[in-house]
């Protein structure tokens, strides 16, 4: 994972709440076995509408998505994060994220910046009044800046640290291999395994 400290890019206002992961990328796009190339599935149903924000200049080239509350609800598909990143987004701003989406973002280096709804509304107005306005998201001081607007955002400290350092979760956990082994040695013997059962 690439480290993330700060990012500046065109802000994209998405005035919708409850943007579920079926909207971010419909199931029909999940059949691939690769980890790249999901940008064509991003908001696939909405992109058929010529007035959809990502079909408008200069939002097409956006990299900071500013969405309504409850972003990323529903399915656990990490493809939603891949699709956003493959398209070019580095940050999603919302006043409330679904838990699994937020977790998936943190694993991939997409910053899910939780900004209160009042500031989201101000950002929307700003981005709509002056399309192409750039938004700067600074992970070191946890602020979002656009023109004169400065808004704090929340992100959990551990995810922030991992993003700043660009650390791989699995490598971090494998440092504790001995402790995992000790735990396994103490597990109850009746717990099931998936080993095929012998025919009786």
């Amino acid at each position, binding site marked *: 994972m690439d480290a993330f400290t700060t990012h500046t890019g065109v802000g994209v206002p998405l*005035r*919708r*709440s*409850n943007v*579920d992961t*079926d*909207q971010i990328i*419909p*199931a*029909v796009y*999940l*059949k*691939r*076995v*690769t*980890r790249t190339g999901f940008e064509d599935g991003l908001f696939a*149903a909405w992109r058929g509408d010529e007035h959809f924000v990502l079909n408008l200049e200069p939002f097409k080239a956006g990299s900071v998505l500013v969405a*309504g*509350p*409850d972003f990323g*609800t*529903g*399915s*656990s*598909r*990490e493809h939603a*994060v891949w699709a956003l990143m493959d398209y070019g987004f580095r940050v999603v701003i919302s006043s*409330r994220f*679904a*838990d*699994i989406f937020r*977790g*998936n973002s943190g*694993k*991939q280096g997409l910053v899910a910046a939780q900004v209160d709804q009042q500031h989201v509304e101000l950002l929307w107005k700003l981005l709509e009044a002056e399309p192409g306005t750039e938004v700067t998201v600074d992970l070191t001081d946890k602020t979002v800046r656009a023109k004169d607007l400065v808004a704090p955002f929340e992100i*959990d*400290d*551990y995810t922030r*640290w991992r993003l700043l350092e660009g650390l791989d*979760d*699995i490598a*971090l*956990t*494998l440092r*504790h*291999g001995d*402790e*995992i082994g000790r*735990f*396994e040695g103490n*597990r*109850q013997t*009746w*717990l*099931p*395994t*998936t*080993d*095929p*059962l012998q025919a009786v």
Partner: protein
Amino acid sequence: MSRTLAEKVWEAHVVRHGSGAEPDLLYIDLHLLHEVTSPQAFDGLRLAGRKLRRADLTIATEDHNVPTVDIDKPIADLVSRTQVDTLRRNCAEFGVRLHPMGDVEQGIVHVVGPQLGLTQPGMTVVCGDSHTSTHGAFGALAFGIGTSEVEHVMATQTLPLRPFKTMAITVDGELGPGVTAKDVILAVIAKIGTGGGQGYVLEYRGSAIEALSMEARMTVCNMSIEAGARAGMIAPDQTTFDYIEGRPHAPSGADWVAAVEYWKTLRTDDDATFSAEVHIDAAELTPFVTWGTNPGQGLPLGASVPDPESFTDEHERVAAEKALTYMGLEPGTPLRDIHVDTVFLGSCTNGRIEDLRAAADVLRGKHVAQGVRMLVVPGSMRVRAQAEREGLHEVFLDAGAEWRQAGCSMCLGMNPDQLAPGERSASTSNRNFEGRQGKGGRTHLVSPLVAAATAVRGTLSAPADLEN
């Protein structure tokens, strides 16, 4: 210190406590795989030269992509076929037990785990699928994860996680006739909202929950994610033990005695406190259906399509407007007047034998309305076989419904079972999102009883409507 059920299960799985902002490292007892969210995780292992740590705690099945007819032929969609073939290759390479299409144990991952007896109280269960919350019905801590986490569990059999908050959902009293577990959970979601459970594990409790069968409990826990919660749980009791006993992977002999003794400790202590509490009176619940495009947009069947102007919250008002446009509905229309084109009975929410029995009881001796198609898709091949032993398939076929093979089917638009643009369904599945059942498709979430009655009348209906 007194603890909730979720806290007890959590504590029993902590490999190491994190310090400061660092999360706890939690051991995972069972990892379920399917073809959609696993290929990139297997690839990740290969790229990093890592091993699958515990193949013996991992099991895979094919469900999302599989067709539910002609399963003896190769999958026609080449991309789907490649994904299924990739799962088969990965399972062979890493030594994972797989139940492929056509196998007697194949089915939806959340139906297969419990029926094999692999899901047991007090376990941690994960899967790259948000409906993993289903397994919480056994008093397991079970939740959906993304593909990066799937890879993490493969490599380490653990996950770094911060403890969840706990919310008690107490449903007291008796459910009225025709009111099911599906109606309970749809009412819960409508009450707390699609974001109401975020950050929480929901514990369902109260006399109405205790009275539910294991399968009904699974329906309730299954949709916890639709309220935004990571997991739902129900304390194990005699109903749970009776369901597990004798299943292929259940403990036996002295192990059974020891296991039950432990399972009986898995209850929220009387003086434990939850971070939040919600109370619902079971007697007030009636059959519940959704009118909008998220599972929180639901109402009792006797209500009418709401007027967006009636919502005081600005986001809810805008969401309702967008939902009604997408759904092609007018405010004020009685829900019972809404005509459907298709009825789908199945999914990890309502594809178990009791669901099929309930629907068959309504359909017996009746016929699906003209112009309506009804798909009956068992959640697993075992459920299908059981239904055929009971003659339920004949009831469905005689009524004019289609009797299919096991899979996720029309719950999500990923296999051949899909709605066409503008087509309207009454569906026993879990999500009514835009396009969920196929691009442009319009979904009303319902219970199996409402699904069957709707199939007969052609409009959203409860079984009681058939008597008039």
